[in-house]
């Protein structure tokens, strides 16, 4: 297992350097130089420009600059926002819980509905239920989620008036964030109605963000389950006279879950991409909206830092999934 971990790290470390290189190159590919970008629309005098170029080391050879950048990163310095003048890492950490809460809730919805739907569809292959689930999954998979969000707003906020349109909680409530998770914080605050307000803000964005993972999980569970159900050990279990629930629940499901877990892990990247759209539609104050806003505000150091941090998180989660996969499926870590 340790060897397996080392092997995985051997792949992930060069990739991480590649990612830092992309982030480094990104800001240099923009028209103008970094100092002019920091100055923004105001511009600056020639002398001040040269002075600042020297101060930040932008007059040094490009490789030296990259080394300098890596050193900064190693010290936990992900740059300073041009607009707010705050460290990018601080902004990221402040906003991250909002995205994490949304993504987690979306994933819970996706797994909660996707897994049973795929399982039942597989056991009743060819039935109306199966066809409905598969059609639904394909529609969900093809869904432009930004439009799906707008539709839900029209229906639940506009016509029914059940849910608010934007934000994380009503302005009526205010409390200091403790965990950064609004659902938990609102409970901790003890204010009446705060929790239900937080829930009603969370539910629509979470459904929107969970739609594609839900479809993917349902499809994957179904096909994994179908594959497992035709295996010899399932036939043996049946032949032994075990009831269908025991066969499916104990023998088949455990093995079918192996590929499904991988798919769930791989959805993290999808969730971040989806968060960009979902948070923009629902004005959800998380990482996705912050990235889009930063791009529009031309806050390129925020974009640079955010890009790197997001890629790092995606890579770490994928590594964790790989390890988990190796743990539950010994075949993987002993082959290849």
């Amino acid at each position, binding site marked *: 297992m340790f060897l397996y971990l080392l092997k995985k790290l051997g792949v992930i470390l060069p990739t991480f350097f590649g990612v830092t290189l992309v982030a480094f190159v990104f800001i240099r590919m923009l028209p103008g130089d970094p100092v002019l970008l920091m100055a923004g629309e105001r511009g600056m005098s020639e002398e001040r420009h040269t002075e600042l170029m020297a101060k930040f080391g932008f007059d040094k050879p490009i490789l030296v600059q990259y080394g300098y950048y890596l050193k900064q990163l190693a010290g936990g310095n992900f740059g300073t926002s041009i607009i707010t003048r705050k460290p990018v890492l601080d902004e990221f950490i402040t906003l991250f819980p909002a995205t994490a809460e949304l993504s987690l809730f979306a994933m819970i919805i996706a797994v909660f509905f996707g897994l049973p739907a795929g399982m039942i569809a597989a056991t009743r292959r060819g039935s109306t239920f199966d066809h409905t689930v598969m059609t639904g999954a394909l529609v969900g998979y093809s869904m432009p989620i*930004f439009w799906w969000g707008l539709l839900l707003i029209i229906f639940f906020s506009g016509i029914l008036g059940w849910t608010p349109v934007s934000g994380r909680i009503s302005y009526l409530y205010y409390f200091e964030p403790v965990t950064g998770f609004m659902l938990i914080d609102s409970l901790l605050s003890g204010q009446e109605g705060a929790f239900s307000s937080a829930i009603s803000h969370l539910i629509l964005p979470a459904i929107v963000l969970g739609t594609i993972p839900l479809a993917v999980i349902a499809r994957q569970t179904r096909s994994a389950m179908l594959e497992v159900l035709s295996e010899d050990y399932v036939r043996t279990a049946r032949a032994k006279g075990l009831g269908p629930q025991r066969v499916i629940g104990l023998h088949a499901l455990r093995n079918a879950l192996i590929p499904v877990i991988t798919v769930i892990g791989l959805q993290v990247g999808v969730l971040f991409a989806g968060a960009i759209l979902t948070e923009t539609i629902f004005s959800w104050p998380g990482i996705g909206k912050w990235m889009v806003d930063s791009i529009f505000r031309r806050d390129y150091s925020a974009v640079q830092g955010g890009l790197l941090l997001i890629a790092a998180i995606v890579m770490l989660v994928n590594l964790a999934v790989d390890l988990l996969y190796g743990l539950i499926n010994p075949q993987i870590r002993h082959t290849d």
Partner: protein
Amino acid sequence: MTETTIQEAADIVQIVDDRPTGVRAQLAEFWSYFSENRGAVMGLFFFIAVVLIAVFANFIAPHLPNQQFRDALLQPPFWQTGGDVKFLLGTDAIGRDMLSRLIYGSRYSLFIGCIVVSFSLVVGVILGLVAGFFRGRIDTFIMRIMDVVLAFPSLLLALVLVAILGPSLINAMIAIAIVQQPHYVRLTRAAVMSEMTKDYVVAARVIGVRALRLMFITILPNCMAPLIVQAALSFSTAILDAAALGFLGMGAQPPTPEWGTMLAEAREFILSAWWVVTFPGVAILTTVLAINLMGDGLRDALDPKLKRS
């Protein structure tokens, strides 16, 4: 061995195996598998309809996409009170006919899909072939770059690329093509590596076929099945991503009647004029769905090894 014996041998083979061969037979076989999947056939017909609509947009669309009717702003579809059959699906905030804009919009979506798929397919196949054929350092180098691209959430990377290149439809297509690249490289490489060990490749090597011919003429045609399926799936992803970029204001710019851009313009009327928000999304969803249905059918038909499920 003389000329005649080879001929005789060929005749015998001919007698033994009299199944029709050639492209037509292959197509017939393909169709018999493909048409088993009703969804796929429906998807295909819908897709053909969209292509026809895009090609003949000038003749079908009742109005020009950017023509403004100042006396008919935000007019609802014809079946609602206040609607007019002149504008079947209503008009938008500056009096443009929704139906005509949607019809012309199909051109953009198909164009985006075609360009993105052909670009990422060609470059991805070449890189994948090189990586899988030569292995060694060049393989590691190419695959590490692809890993880096895959480390970023695709839409985020596309968004940042467009921020560098400047927001426009062309740049959005370039960004999406770059983001989709790694999937083709990985698929091609895997397929090439599994073909490389087969007898026909070894035989071709032994008789001295050169690398380029070996790569493109001997091996590549046998790797096509997964690539065709991937092409269909990434066609729909390209349409979705381009629409998403348009929606964020980073793709096609107004007044282009691109479906995602239309949605972005319609956002502020979400609670007052449902039709300007609903129809562009329906257009995106149905087109993408049709292509995905087709993709599923293609996979079933081209890859008999996959269990039919």
